[in-house]
């Protein structure tokens, strides 16, 4: 799996495609798919294809930190481009200790060799949050803390792609009370371009689309959470096929009522669609087969920061239940008391003035 050749000696993606017998029509179809997925204008497909053909296969180092491997499981289910194409045609995956055959010292040696040979040019993919408490001792590998590994790997990276909500924002590990002091990559690395691809897990097509677009045109336009606007520019709610039911005021009240069977809006069942930016509603999952809301469950907002701590997943997104009934009663009593005192004072003044007048 290790790549001993620096990137400038790597063949271009166009050369790899030609060698593999990929025809122009097929390549253009592939590029059109990517540009459409990223909502780029149709006319940009030709330029995208030209840039992608000219790009050299980058060395990619995939570093797992405090993670569950769900993001990698998601990535391996990408259908466009398929993982094997991604690995062998588009990128040179030089380190991923879950997928690679090498283990232990051999794997670490391969990583160091790839980092050295492609210094300043490799793409670093981070998966999982970084525990910061007790000097990062909650997460170690190969005798080094994750913090040290990130610092070392980030130094020579052309860009860092933080895949999953953990790498992007800390994710589940950072949920209250955050015992390990987990943070996202962007909280630690400040001097490298960072692209966040959050989600729990992120959409595979989004992950691969970001990598491919990075090869063709560099770091894409990002939002304030460093997410590519092409994929995270719209809310789930804006693109949801159930939106028309929201607009008509038709809501499922439980998961098995008539509304749920009729496919009505899941807003009242806690759907986070209105405040969640992701591409689930347009690209869908499992090769476009379905997505959570289509399967009957509300969006849980997994691509948003701190989504674990945003209240129960089944609590509606509107107002929080007013439980301070005691405080309201006290306020009412205080209002009546102050009002009565004010009226009493006014009447006394009234009487005094009347007395003075007489």
């Amino acid at each position, binding site marked *: 799996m290790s790549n001993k050749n620096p990137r400038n000696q790597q063949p271009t993606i166009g050369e790899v495609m030609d060698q593999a017998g990929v025809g122009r029509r097929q390549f253009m179809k592939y590029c059109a798919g990517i540009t459409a997925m990223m909502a780029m204008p149709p006319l940009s497909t030709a330029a995208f294809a030209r840039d992608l053909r000219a790009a050299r296969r980058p060395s990619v180092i995939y570093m797992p930190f405090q993670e569950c491997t769900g993001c990698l499981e998601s990535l391996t289910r990408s259908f466009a481009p398929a993982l094997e194409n991604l690995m062998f045609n588009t990128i040179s995956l030089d380190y991923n200790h879950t997928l690679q055959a090498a283990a232990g010292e051999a794997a670490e040696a391969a990583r160091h060799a790839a980092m050295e040979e492609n210094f300043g040019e490799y793409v670093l993919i981070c998966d999982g949050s970084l525990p910061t408490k007790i000097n990062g001792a909650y997460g170690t590998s190969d005798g080094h803390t994750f913090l040290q590994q990130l610092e070392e790997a980030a130094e020579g990276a052309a860009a860092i792609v933080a895949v999953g909500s953990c790498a992007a924002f800390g994710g589940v590990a950072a949920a209250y009370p955050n015992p390990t002091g987990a943070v996202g990559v962007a909280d630690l690395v400040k001097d490298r371009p960072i692209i966040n691809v959050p989600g729990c897990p992120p959409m595979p097509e989004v992950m691969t689309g970001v990598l491919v677009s990075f090869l063709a045109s560099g770091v894409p336009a990002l939002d304030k959470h460093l997410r590519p606007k092409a994929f995270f520019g719209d*809310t789930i*709610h*804006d693109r949801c096929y159930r939106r028309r039911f*929201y*607009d*008509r*005021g038709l*809501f499922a*009240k439980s998961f098995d009522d008539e509304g749920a069977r009729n496919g009505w809006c899941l*807003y*009242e069942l806690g759907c986070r669609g*209105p*405040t969640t*930016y992701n591409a689930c509603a347009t690209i869908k999952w499992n090769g476009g087969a379905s997505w959570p809301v289509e399967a009957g469950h509300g969006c849980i907002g997994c691509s948003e920061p*701190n989504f674990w701590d*945003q*209240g129960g997943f089944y609590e*509606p997104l*509107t*107002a*929080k*239940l*007013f439980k*301070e009934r005691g*405080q*309201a009663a006290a*306020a*009412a009593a*205080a*209002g*009546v008391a*102050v*009002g*009565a005192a*004010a*009226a*009493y004072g*006014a*009447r006394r003044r009234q009487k005094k003035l009347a007395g003075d007048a007489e």
Partner: protein
Amino acid sequence: MSILEFSRGPMLHFALIVFVFGVLWRLTATFLLGFRQRRSEPRVTKGQAMAGGATVLGMRSWPHKEFIGRTAFGEAVGYGYHIGLFTIVLLGAPHVLFWQNLFGFSAPWWPTLPGGLITFISILTVMLMLIATIRRVGHPVLRRISNFDDYFTLVILYALMLTGLMTVLGIGGRYEYILAAHIISFNALLIWFPFSKLMHAFYIFPSRFLNGYMHAKKGAAK
């Protein structure tokens, strides 16, 4: 805690408590003031006085025929945006959900209007509010009797309406911030309400009724 969580959680609850406190303060103070002692003999029975009150309540809620040419437009605009505001608040689906979630009740019978219609009514309401504002500023008498209270209330109402429209139309920024701004505007309205002319919502009908009642009692209602 995000600004949206804050606005629809603690801030909203605080605003509600201030609203309850302030409204009860104002109402209690007003109704316990009592009435000046009337030394003249009542000209009508209590029932007739009550009927007189109800008559005046109705008459004052409609343009007087002698002034209809001058007041009908202003009253129509006023009625228009008040009806618009009530329709949006009471029949807009997100607002109905808001009330149900806030006070923890379920009312499946509560009707809602389609979102598109509510958006149309909202735009119409904002236009009527604009006309009312221009009239207030341009009309020599209205301008003289307007003060900070009126204009500040209008500022809050515009903020509330515009952020609501922006939330629905998806313009002006990220949804959660615009929604938070919308809820914060509502919280500001709740806090400002008891201490402003917005209290007319509670006073307007009792005061018209009492006016008519008193005049009828003195035999001056006709």
